[in-house]
């Protein structure tokens, strides 16, 4: 890889489409190593990826690679390799032709050599003579990565790279990304599958409903999430009996009767609470009418991270 690692910085970035806010005031810094961009479908991951790769103008804020904005800055692509989620529509090219075309577009001095090197790197030398439309999903994914890496970029952005790839190929891809990260490249990939991110990235950024919900070490976030008490509003057929019942449970920290009926419950151990609540109430003949988290935004992150 040429030169030291690059850093992608988003500063108070928002993006809206008409009335829909897709990305809401996100600030984050992505440095060398593998970073996972995690969030449920529709959380704004693709929009963020488009913003970071210069294919979308931020409505507010700035997206900069090593201090230079990426929107309408063609030269930035010398340092960025992009693997879009979109399928290749170049089915009439062979894998080698496609990667070679990418090398030529970068005007690499030794385009042929670079093509062969990168095909070997992603283990695609043997099928490279076949047309793209004969490839399996995993092979297409690897050719896309080869095309994005052929100019030896410092930053590699991958949008949902594991979608539809079979487990063995997925292992293979993860191995490749891990190696690229270890080489000091800035590798960012998005995924809505917790397990994928957990296995590959130490550092994660979580987006939920367009907001930047959490960032940092995966284990630390998860611990923070499970350790903090969670608020619930509960309505039942007999609130006082339910309160008595709940306060006896070790997983519940506090119970309060609401003025207009119902209970506010503060829960320490969500897992036990979630599994236990139906059983406890059924045993006592209490009917639950409503159970809803009261601190919505954090709750959704929490629910997303722990609910499997």
């Amino acid at each position, binding site marked *: 890889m040429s030169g030291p690692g690059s850093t992608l910085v988003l500063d108070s970035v928002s993006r809206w*489409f008409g009335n829909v806010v897709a990305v809401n005031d996100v600030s984050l810094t992505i440095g060398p190593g593998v970073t996972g961009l995690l969030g449920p479908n529709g959380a704004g991951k*693709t*929009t963020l990826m*488009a913003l970071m*790769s*210069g*294919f*979308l*103008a931020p409505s507010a804020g700035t997206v900069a690679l090593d201090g230079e904005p990426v929107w*309408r800055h*063609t*030269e*930035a*692509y*010398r340092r*960025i*390799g*992009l693997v*879009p989620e*979109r*399928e*290749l*529509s*170049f089915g*009439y*090219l062979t894998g080698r032709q496609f990667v070679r*075309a*990418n090398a*030529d*577009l*970068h005007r690499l001095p030794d385009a042929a050599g670079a093509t062969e090197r990168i095909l070997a790197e992603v283990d695609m030398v043997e099928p490279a003579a076949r047309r793209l439309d004969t490839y399996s999903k995993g092979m297409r994914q690897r050719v896309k990565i080869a*095309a*994005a890496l052929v100019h030896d970029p410092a930053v590699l952005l991958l949008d949902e790279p594991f979608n539809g790839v079979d487990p063995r190929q997925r292992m293979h891809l993860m191995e490749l990304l891990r190696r690229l990260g270890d080489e000091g490249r800035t590798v960012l990939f998005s995924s809505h599958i917790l397990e994928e991110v957990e296995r590959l990235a130490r550092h994660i950024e979580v987006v939920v409903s367009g907001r930047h919900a959490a960032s940092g070490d995966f284990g630390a976030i998860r611990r923070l999430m499970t350790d903090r008490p969670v608020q619930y509003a509960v309505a039942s057929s007999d609130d006082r009996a339910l309160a008595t019942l709940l306060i006896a449970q070790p997983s519940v920290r506090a119970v309060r009767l609401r003025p207009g009926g119902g209970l506010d419950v503060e829960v320490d151990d969500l897992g036990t609470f979630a599994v236990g609540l139906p059983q406890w109430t059924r045993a006592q003949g209490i009917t639950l009418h409503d159970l809803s988290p009261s601190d919505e935004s954090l709750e959704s992150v929490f629910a997303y991270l722990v609910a499997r």
Partner: protein
Amino acid sequence: MNATIVKLAAQALLGRRRFWLLLAFPVLLVALTATVAALTDGDAAWPLLPGLGYPVVLPLVAVLAASSVLGPEVDDGSIVYLLSKPVNRHAIAVSKWVVAWAATMLAGVLPLWVSALVAGGGDRATAAGIAAAVAGTAYSALFLAISAVTRHAVIVSLLFVLIWEGLLGNLLSGVAWLSVAQWGLRIGHELSPELPDPTNLPWALLASVVVTAGGAWFAGDRLRSFSLRGED
């Protein structure tokens, strides 16, 4: 200009089924004129050119060519593979236009000229060839610009050709001032008085140049602001 983009665009044009449709037009036109000219005489075949070849076949070829080199890639988003490169956007647009232009010349203008030769040749054949070359050049740039703006480029381009230039152009003579086909005819008129004289020459020349250069430039400008959106 970028040789790699030219190569890819040419492959896109040749590697798809629509190439055969593109090829069908010149074959149809030349075969029809030749048949009529053989059965009767050249003068009887000539009306096929101003009636069918020039106002319909030529623009249709240009629509197909221009939308083939850009349309599908914009439509399915795979143009990002070209745009995520340190290549000037205007160079991309011009390269795409060159391919569309070459296809229009080969599949639209050349057969038109050949048909004109079959239908008698002479000055009017040369004039028709020049008119077609001018109009084909402007058409390909105009339709490329439309392809860069909307996913419905084909239908918008056809509206321009068939409704504006064709239907309205036949009813309102003023449309000639804003009609690519009429500019071409006016330039051809210099070589043969058999072609109509709908506007004045400086305007026809200027407008053709402006549409050609403006269309290619505008397509490049749209590519500069290309945004990747989710599926919609």
